[in-house]
């Protein structure tokens, strides 16, 4: 067998990752046709796309710690795909709400977004991710320039925080799962802060 070039190999790896990331969607579609989304399929679809968006978003934030702690330097090559998939699921999540809960009435949707704090949070999270998704191409990175691009993309933390708050505020009594997501996010922040203080102390010497 011909050995793959590095580029081809990366392409293959990314394709596999994309397939894996599409599994939650595939399961939703499969379950829909199997009639196994339960008594309230719209709610099930909303919850599952929301879960996928949040999980993949957190995974994208975990890329640089994974690089460092597991010495898996190539992890960074997959971060864009993770971020874009998180945005894709977020968009699906919102679209289901827009179509089935609001029946495409933009007026009602706007009023709802403004009035319900947890929806405000979720919507803001998605809005923040939009420019990040748009500026995710190589061309845009070049056009903005590395430092500026990086500064812009720090907004992903805000998106993640808002997404966790969105989940936290919608829960009626059992906050276990949003608390777990919150804990993961706190860990990611902690790892970043440790690194920053280390870098600072290195500079002092």
């Amino acid at each position, binding site marked *: 067998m011909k050995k793959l070039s590095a580029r081809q190999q990366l392409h293959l790896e990314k394709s596999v990752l994309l397939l894996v990331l599409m599994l939650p969607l595939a399961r939703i579609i499969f379950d829909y046709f199997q009639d196994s989304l339960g*008594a*309230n399929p719209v709610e099930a679809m909303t919850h599952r796309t929301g879960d996928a968006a949040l999980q993949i978003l957190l995974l994208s934030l975990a890329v640089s710690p994974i690089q460092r702690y597991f010495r898996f330097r190539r992890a960074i090559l997959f971060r864009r795909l993770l971020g874009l998939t998180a945005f894709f699921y977020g968009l699906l999540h919102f679209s289901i709400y827009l179509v*089935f809960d609001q029946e495409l009435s933009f007026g009602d949707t706007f009023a*709802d977004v403004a009035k*319900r704090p947890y929806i405000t949070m979720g919507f803001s999270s998605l809005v923040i991710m939009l420019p990040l998704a748009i500026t995710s191409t190589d061309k845009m990175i070049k056009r903005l320039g590395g430092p500026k691009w990086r500064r812009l993309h720090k907004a992903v933390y805000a998106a993640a925080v808002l997404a966790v708050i969105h989940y936290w505020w*919608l829960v009626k*009594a059992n906050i276990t799962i949003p608390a777990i997501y919150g804990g993961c996010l706190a860990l990611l922040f902690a790892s970043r802060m440790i690194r920053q203080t280390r870098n600072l102390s290195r500079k002092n010497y």
Partner: protein
Amino acid sequence: MLKYLKCRDVPHSSLRMHKALMEGTMLIKIIDPTAAREHEVTPQALYLDRRRLMASTARSMIAAGATGISGLMSSMAFAAKAYEKVPKGSPFDTNEALTPLKDVTSYNNFYEFGTDKGDPKINSGSLKPRPWKITVDGEVEKPTSFDIDDFIKTKKLEERIYRLRCVEAWSMVIPWIGFPLADVIKAARPNSKAKFVAFTTLLDPAQMPGQKSKILDWPYTEGLRLDEASHPLAFLAVGLYGDTLPNQSGAPLRLVVPWKYGFKSIKSIVKITFTSTQPKTTWNVMGPDEYGFYSNVNPNVDHPRWSQGKERRIGELFKRKTMMFNGYDQVASLYTGLDLKKNF
């Protein structure tokens, strides 16, 4: 939605049921444990047949068979006792499509068995609805306690087909079996100090594993004003879809107050207490700005976190408008002069 319409074929067994119906034989008398599936399936098929709904799949019936088995042991309780079908056009009836049994018994809010909608069906096997003691006490002339079966024996069982509207903006249509709460009130003979009726769910973390985590202030309690509780619509259910209440639906005895949000309809009741002051109710204590004592279904008063103007009927994809008092206008006179925005 699609799924309830695509299978129009009548399951072969329902032909037999149809015959049985024509001959006027009661259907809930099958007690042979080996006939569990048939036994459980029969009522729904009958209902659907009777109401000329094409709203079911063969699969849902099989699922119904699986869910109902837990209720089998206790189904002898009123299997021998017929219940009166709701008369057509009665205020206790509706011509709306019934929510399939499969959905009624697999999509539940019963935090004593977990906070996911699917949890109660999975986890409620540990609940033992027989033997079961119910205490009636407080401001009454004769405080008593009964065994559930003795209790049921003294009651005339009837059917009620009610809409159930959850505070989470979804709804169902369920055929209950039970008796008016007013019957119990009359029998208890409340004294002049009695102004409210309080209800308590069983407290037993061994039977109700959800009580091991402090999600709510256990045991679950609910309450009604005495005049609300005496309204003919207020109902105590011991069964649904022609059979004994499944555990996940609040076996062996639950309240059904169709003009209020579902959480008012407390499940697995062990105690009914008449009080002179407004009793503490679980969700009201948990979030007083979100869940009022009254909690009447009201499309004009939003829950702080979501709109109450619309609801999703289980089985439908899009939402429909929510009706004042869930469509039970006959209760309006209970609240004349009361600001329902303040007393939500």
